[in-house]
């Protein structure tokens, strides 16, 4: 789910980048914030950091001892993407393996659908390997799938999420509507 969040952060401006004019300083703070935001990528609690939408407030700067850098508390609004257990989402298959399929969903690269969680589908080997069921419904590369999330995992080192998903439930599976 995409979320609109309001975050209080601290932005640190190096002493040599401090500008006397207010406007230039504000610009410096915003650039710094945008840079920090993009580097942060994601957190376990809030999910992936997509974009800063508006800056609400820049507080009083505090000079840090020793370095002379100035720390500004800021409050801003941003969009994040977090995946929840039990959530129903849609994704696109990008890799088929014998034991399951990998999908992309929003910024998440590894959404895994195990063949154990799509019981009526069978693996069909070949150059364009895929999974098929008796009704000729096909799960192959670039196919859109609607699934339910059964587990999520936060990888601290990569700052990334992985998800386990399932097709067990009503109205889940490949989507054929041509209008999207």
């Amino acid at each position: 789910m995409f979320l609109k969040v309001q975050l209080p952060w601290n932005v640190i401006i190096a002493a040599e980048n401090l500008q006397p004019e207010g406007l230039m300083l504000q610009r410096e703070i915003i650039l710094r914030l945008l840079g920090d935001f993009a580097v942060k990528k994601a957190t376990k609690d809030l999910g992936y950091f997509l974009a800063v939408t508006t800056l609400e407030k820049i507080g009083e700067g505090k000079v840090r001892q020793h370095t002379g850098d100035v720390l500004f508390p800021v409050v801003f609004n941003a969009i994040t993407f977090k995946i929840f257990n039990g959530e129903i989402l849609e994704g696109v298959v990008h890799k088929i393996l014998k034991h399951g399929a990998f999908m992309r969903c929003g910024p998440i690269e590894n959404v895994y659908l195990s063949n154990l969680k799509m019981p009526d589908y069978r693996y069909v080997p070949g150059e364009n390997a895929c999974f098929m069921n008796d009704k000729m419904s096909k799960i192959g590369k670039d196919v859109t799938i609607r699934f339910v999330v059964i587990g999520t995992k936060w990888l601290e080192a990569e700052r990334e999420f992985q998800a386990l998903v399932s097709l067990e439930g009503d109205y889940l599976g490949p989507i054929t509507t041509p209008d999207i």
Partner: protein
Amino acid sequence: MSGEEEENAAELKIGDEFLKAKCLMNCEVALILDHKYEQLQQTSDDPTSQISQVFEKSLQYVKRFSRYKNPDAVRQVREILTRYQLTEFELCVLGNLCPETVEEAIAMVPSIKTRGRAQDDEAIEKMLNDLSLIKKFE
């Protein structure tokens, strides 16, 4: 994933801070990110360096999965769904998945039936009809 209670979006067990947080539909995110993208193209000397991978992948995703493209239609969808006492989370799941039947809507958002908000089938039916009308006239 531990915690006192297992997280389960189907029953709206997703942590208080998220229940109250404002959720966004794919089509709304698409409008915002698209606008951001254009802004960056115009104001930055080196736009590609300002765009993170997370931004890029998300933009691609929401463009593919937006059921409504026109900004007026997007606004109307939220307006209509707001009339039905849904939580932010439920509202966005419905707006994203656009179920066609009452049965499908309940399968996608089981909590609309279980939370005792007297959401009868008739009301759900009317909501789905209103949504499909927007799609038709978009």
